[in-house]
C-alpha cells in the first residue's frame, strides 16, 4: 500500500474527536457542550464546528460561571461564541449561592471551585440536558487516565469508576435509563502538546492569559496566583506581592489557577516551553493539591 494512505497524529486525533462529537450529537436527545473558556474547551468547540460544518452546532454551549473569572476570559468567551455562531447558556455559581443551594467557603483561601459541581448539576437539570461534552484529557491526571469517552453518570451525576462501560473499537454505548446522563470527552487521547500543536496548525485565537505578560502576582502554598478582586492576601503573603512576567497553562477559577514564570509570548514559544517542561500543567492547580485523590473524589461527586 502506498505511503499516501497515512495521516499524521493531529489528523488522526481530529478525526477521532469528530467521530465522537457526531456520535454524541446522534445518541442523545438534549446534549450540551461545557465551555470554560480554557484552551481545551476552545479546541473542543472548534472541532464541533468542523464536525457539523457547514451547519451550525446542533447543541448549545454552557458556561459554569464562578463569578471569579479573569476578565479576559469573559471577553474572549463572548467573541468566540459569536464567531462560531453558537448559542450560549450561563449557569452561575452566584445564583446557586443566592438560592441557598451552596454555602460559600469562608476564609482567605476560599474558592468557588468546589461549588461549581452543584451549579453544573443544577444547570444540567434546569435545562434538561441528558449529556454534556467536557474537554477533559486522560493525560491530565491519574484518575482521568481511566475515564471513558462516554462516561456514564447515575441519577446524582456521580462517577463510579468500578461501573464504567467497556469501550471497544469505536463503538460507544450511550444508552441510559431516565434520570441518568453522560459526560462525553472527545479530547480523551490528546496531550497538552497535541492541543498546542493543533492550535498552531489551525491558527485558533486564544485568550491573552495564555501568553506571557507582566501581571500582579503573589505566592500561596508554592503556587503563583494573580492578584484579583476575589482574593484577600494573608499577612504573610503581602511581602510576596509583585509584578512579574507570567502566563497561565490552564485557565480555571481565578482563585485557584496558578501562573508560571514564562517569557512565552507566541504559540511557538509555548510549544517550545511545553516540550521542555518538567512539571505537569495541573501542577499549578491548587484544587488538585488538596489531597492525593482530590480529582478522583471530585469526579465521584459529579465534577467534570
Amino acid at each position: 500500500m502506498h505511503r499516501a494512505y497515512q495521516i499524521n497524529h493531529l489528523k488522526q486525533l481530529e478525526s477521532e474527536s469528530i467521530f465522537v462529537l457526531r456520535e454524541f450529537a446522534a445518541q442523545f436527545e438534549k446534549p450540551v457542550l461545557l465551555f470554560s473558556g480554557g484552551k481545551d474547551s476552545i479546541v473542543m468547540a472548534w472541532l464541533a464546528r468542523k464536525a457539523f460544518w457547514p451547519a451550525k452546532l446542533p447543541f448549545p454551549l454552557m458556561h459554569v460561571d464562578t463569578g471569579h473569572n479573569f476578565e479576559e476570559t469573559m471577553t474572549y468567551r463572548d467573541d468566540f461564541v459569536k464567531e462560531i455562531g453558537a448559542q450560549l447558556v450561563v449557569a452561575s455559581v452566584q445564583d446557586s449561592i443566592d438560592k441557598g443551594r451552596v454555602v460559600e467557603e469562608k476564609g482567605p483561601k476560599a474558592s468557588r471551585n468546589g461549588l461549581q459541581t452543584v451549579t453544573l448539576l443544577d444547570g444540567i437539570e434546569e435545562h434538561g440536558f441528558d449529556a454534556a461534552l467536557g474537554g477533559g484529557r486522560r493525560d491530565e491526571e491519574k484518575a482521568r487516565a481511566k475515564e471513558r469517552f462516554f462516561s456514564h453518570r447515575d441519577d446524582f451525576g456521580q462517577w463510579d469508576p468500578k461501573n464504567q462501560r467497556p469501550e471497544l473499537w469505536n463503538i460507544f454505548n450511550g444508552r441510559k435509563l431516565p434520570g441518568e446522563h453522560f459526560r462525553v470527552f472527545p479530547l480523551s487521547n490528546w496531550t497538552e502538546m497535541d492541543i498546542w500543536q493543533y492550535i498552531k496548525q489551525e491558527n485558533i485565537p486564544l485568550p491573552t492569559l495564555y501568553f506571557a505578560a507582566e501581571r500582579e502576582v503573589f505566592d500561596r502554598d508554592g503556587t503563583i496566583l494573580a492578584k484579583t478582586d476575589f482574593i484577600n492576601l494573608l499577612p504573610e503573603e503581602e511581602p510576596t506581592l509583585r509584578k512579574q512576567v507570567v502566563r497561565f497553562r490552564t485557565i480555571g477559577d481565578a482563585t485557584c489557577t496558578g501562573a508560571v514564570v514564562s517569557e512565552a509570548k507566541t504559540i511557538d514559544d509555548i510549544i517550545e516551553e511545553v516540550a521542555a517542561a518538567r512539571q505537569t500543567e495541573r501542577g499549578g492547580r491548587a484544587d488538585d493539591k488538596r489531597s492525593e485523590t482530590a480529582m478522583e473524589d471530585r469526579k465521584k461527586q459529579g465534577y467534570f
Partner: protein
Amino acid sequence: MSERGYLDMDLLRFTTAGSVDDGKSTLIGRLLYDSKNIFEDQLEAVEKTSKSRGDEHVNLALLTDGLRAEREQGITIDVAYRYFATPKRKFIIADTPGHIQYTRNMVTGASTANLAIILVDARKGVIEQTCRHSFIASLLQIKHIVVCVNKMDLVDWKKETFDSIVDDYKDFASRLQSVTEVTFIPISALKGDNVVDPSTNMPWYQGPTLLYHLENVYIGSDANHVDARLPVQWVIRPHSTEWHDFRGYAGRVAGGVFKPGDDVVVLPSGFEAKIKAIHDMGGELEEAFNPMSIAMTLDREIDISRGDMIAKPNNQPKVGQDIEAMVCWFSEKKSLAGRAKFILRHTTKECKAIVSEVRYKVNINTLHKIEDDLELKLNDIGRISLRTSSPLFYDSYTKNRQTGSFVLIDEFTNETVAAGMIR
C-alpha cells in the same frame, strides 16, 4: 527538533498485558522515564507515596495505578491509557492487567491497538499467560507483536536462554492465526537494557531496542484500503441560504478509498449515485480513507439516514441477519447460556438481536475447544450464532476491524455485556 517534526508525527497505539510480577509497570515506567516523558511533580508524588507505603525503592508501578482502590490493593483494575512521544511518533499505550480475571480488559485494550507487547520472564519462559496474551492479540487482529524477554539480568544475559524462549514461542505461535509479524527483544526493564538504550551486557543481540522498534515499525498497511465503506453517522443539513441544498453524509471512513466522481451504492436501499464532493471544513478533499472523518455529498437526492452504509457497487459488504461470531463475555452479573435477547450495536447502527446458540468456548490458556460447558461467563471467549432484527452490512473481522465488530447490550440495564468479532 524541526517544526515539521512536531506537527507531522505518526501515531502508534499499542497494548501491554502483564502483571506486576512480569515487570510490566517497570517497563512502562522505564519507557516513559528514559524517553523523558515523566514530569518532576509526578515523580515527586510517586516518591512520596512509595515512602509512606514503606517501599524500599521508588516504585515506578505507582505511576500507572490511577484509582484509590488500585493503589490500596496494589493492583490494576482497569485499562489505563498513557501517552508519550518521541520526535518520530506519538504513542498511546493501553495498559491492561494480565491475570485471567482481566481478560475483558485485555480485549478492550487490544481492540484499538496496532501492536502488542508481550512480556516473558526469562526465568520462566513461555507459560500459560504468554499463551493467553498472544491468543487475545491474534483474536483481536493485532498485526504486530513484540515479545520482550524480560529480566535477562537474572539469567546472566545468556543468549541460549533467549534463543530457547524464541524457539518455544515460535512453536506455539504457529497455532495462532493472522499474526503477521513477531519481533523478539531481550531486555531488562529494571536496568534499562534494550528498552530505550542498547544493552552493553548482551553484545550477541544485534537487533533494535524496544523504543527503536516502536518508532519504526511500519503500520501503513494495517488498515483496510481496499473495500470502501462509509457507515453514515449523521446527515448534515444546514438550512441556510448559502448552503440551501447541501446534504452531507457524515462519518468515519471504515475502509477503502473514496474519491469525488466515484460510483457509490447506498445500503439498504441499493440506490446508486456518484460522489459530488468530499468535505472537510474549509476545503474539498481529493480522497478519503480510514480513519478520516469526512462529509460526502452525492450527485442526486437519495433518502439516507444514520445507520446506512455507503460502499462501491462492485465491492459491497455482506448483508444479512444471521451472524456467526466470536465473543468475549463482559458481564459479571449475567451469563449467557443458550437463547437470549440483546441490543446489538454495529458501526453506527443499532438493532435487536437474539443469540440462538453458544457453539463452543475456548480455553484461552491451551486454545482447546470446550464443548461440554456452553455457559459464557465473565471473561469467557466463545463462538455464538445470532439473528438480528434487521440486516447488518458487515465484513468479516479479519477483513475489517470496524465493519466486523459489534457489542451486545443488556436490554434492561443498558450495560455492555459482550464484544463480538464476526466470522
